[in-house]
């Protein structure tokens, strides 16, 4: 059993008529329920829910505060390497672009780590492009061994790996996995991923499940919103999260709602995701999955982020660079343009002004030598 079987079932649904079946009464019924089912999720993502956003927000806010408190966990990404063998139409690291690629060596890594750690971060998300030659699992593992000296939690966002490789990285100190399907719609997936191992839809789709089986503490999934009809993509994402949560109750399943951002190339997404649509998606995620962490990235502009902190978000990135070595070096190529370029102090001040406690540390790496 894999989520792929669910994908095949969900693909058969008549989406053109399905979204229109729901009325505001269906949305209101969903808001009163304890455990929402597939149909409630569809109602929350339907056009009818657009007129119920305030009621949805009230309930989402209440659920978030009772389960997570008045706190916001902060983390920052670190790009280790930008070598990539894939050609994905929406990404600056795509193999078709000719720019000087780089990867951090041990000394550069230490410099980058100490600058980031000095700004207060204890939770780090490390990223690479996909290159078994330049940034294989062994490279990531060596980096993590160094990084755990500086951080109390290290998560990875790298190409899909096997259970054994995931276990290997866990032993080195990695505790969380982030892996976005990018697009759940198979035909669009094939259109966007032109060359390289990333073309294999199913290998990517099953990777979060392999992460759960390997025993990561947290697994974070998401669709890159804007690549295909957002209602359908959000629906598949939430169903994927529910599938993982039901099957692997010991793992914290989280979601992100990244919107497409400008990058090196000319590709323009098919389906515009307005701010209202983004809010509806985040609220639907929270109501459908009350305990799931929801991450908001610096892809979103500062003013919007400031409002979204009250709508179900539990984790935010700050002080972000999407370049390899972007905290200590210049001249790199960003993977995509960020919108919210505020530094850690500015984000901290914003959270405090919004009556939220910024949380920098929420875990201790327990692997390695016993205390």
């Amino acid at each position, binding site marked *: 059993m894999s989520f792929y079987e669910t994908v095949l079932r969900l693909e058969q649904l008549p989406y053109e008529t399905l979204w229109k079946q729901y009325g505001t009464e269906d949305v209101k019924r969903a808001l009163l329920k304890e455990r929402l089912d597939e149909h409630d999720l569809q109602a929350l993502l339907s056009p009818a829910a657009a007129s119920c956003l305030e009621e949805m927000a009230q309930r989402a806010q209440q659920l978030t*505060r*009772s389960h997570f*408190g008045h706190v916001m966990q902060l983390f920052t990404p670190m790009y280790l390497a930008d070598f990539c063998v894939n050609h994905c139409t929406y990404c600056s690291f795509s193999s078709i672009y000719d720019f000087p690629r780089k990867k951090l060596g041990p000394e550069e890594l230490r410099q980058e780590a100490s600058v980031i750690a000095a700004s207060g971060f*204890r939770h780090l998300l490390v990223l690479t492009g996909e290159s078994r030659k330049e940034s294989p699992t062994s490279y990531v593992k060596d980096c993590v061994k160094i990084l755990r000296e500086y951080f109390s939690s290290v998560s990875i966002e790298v190409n899909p790996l096997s259970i054994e490789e995931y276990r290997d990285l866990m032993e080195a100190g990695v505790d969380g996995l982030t892996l976005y399907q990018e697009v759940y719609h198979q035909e669009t997936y094939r259109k966007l991923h032109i060359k390289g191992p990333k073309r294999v839809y199913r290998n990517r789709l099953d990777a979060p499940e392999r992460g759960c089986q390997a025993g990561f503490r947290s697994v974070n999934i998401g669709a890159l919103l804007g690549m295909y009809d957002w209602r359908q993509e959000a629906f598949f994402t939430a169903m994927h999260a529910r599938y993982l949560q039901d099957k692997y*109750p*010991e793992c914290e399943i989280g979601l992100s709602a990244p919107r497409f951002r400008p990058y090196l190339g000319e590709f323009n997404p098919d389906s515009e995701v307005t701010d209202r649509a983004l809010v509806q998606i985040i609220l639907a995620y929270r109501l459908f999955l009350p305990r799931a962490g929801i991450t908001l990235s610096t892809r979103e502009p500062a003013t919007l982020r400031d409002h979204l902190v009250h709508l179900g978000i539990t984790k935010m990135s700050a002080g972000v660079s999407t370049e390899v070595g972007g905290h200590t070096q210049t001249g790199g190529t960003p993977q995509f343009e960020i919108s919210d370029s505020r530094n850690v102090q500015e984000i901290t001040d914003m959270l405090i002004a919004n009556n939220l406690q*910024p949380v920098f540390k929420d875990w*201790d790496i327990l692997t390695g030598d016993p205390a």
Partner: protein
Amino acid sequence: MSDPFVLGGISLTSRLFIGTGKYSRNTLIPEVVASSGSQVITVALRRVDPQSQENIMNHIPSQMTLLPNTSGARTAEEAVRIARLAKAAGLGNWVKIEVISDQKYLLPDNSETIRATEILAAEGFVVLPYMSPDLSAALRMKAAGAAAIMPLGAPIGSNRGLKTKEMLRILISEVDLPIIVDAGIGRPSEAAEAMEMGASAVLLNTAIATARDPLLMAEAFREAVSSGRKAYLAGLGPVEEAAVHSSPLTGFLN
């Protein structure tokens, strides 16, 4: 009235234990301590960061008895590891064992908790296991060396009150250890009820931390816990279904 609660060799006058995890700012902690009159405070080691100026420990008044908890542990081994790290970090030798292998409802795993209790009690910790109310599990925790048992009233963060009331009643009557109701209490009346039933103390976080006015709510809980305790000591009258004649069966003898 002197009614100390002796736990782990410490004599406490307050029977309200509080948490630290959900406040909008850490500077609220000393204020909540003052309003609640609490003397025991639980803190997740995962949130403790000695390298940070904002370290939560800097906000906990020094007179408090610390109850580090193993939040985040999914197995007995992880709980043991976290407890040892807490001790090494100078947080004392009390520990609230929290082993949760279900991230959806956050219900405790009793069998892993029993194992962790055994290991940590043998190492000299004052062990307070957080558990799903179950008599045989509670008795095993007692045999393993627990200093008190901390059954949940309802799923954590749910504010639903004493949903497990019948089980709590059984634990209070059958387990010869203090019973501290932990998790689920949303209202002062529910805290009072737990105390009236004979619980030795209650532990709360969400109900205070997420109130519109946490300090006023802390005060409300302080009074409720104290009232409930007094009612328990005073001896509640039995509950009757209908009004009863004073002696319907033997009145003829008078």
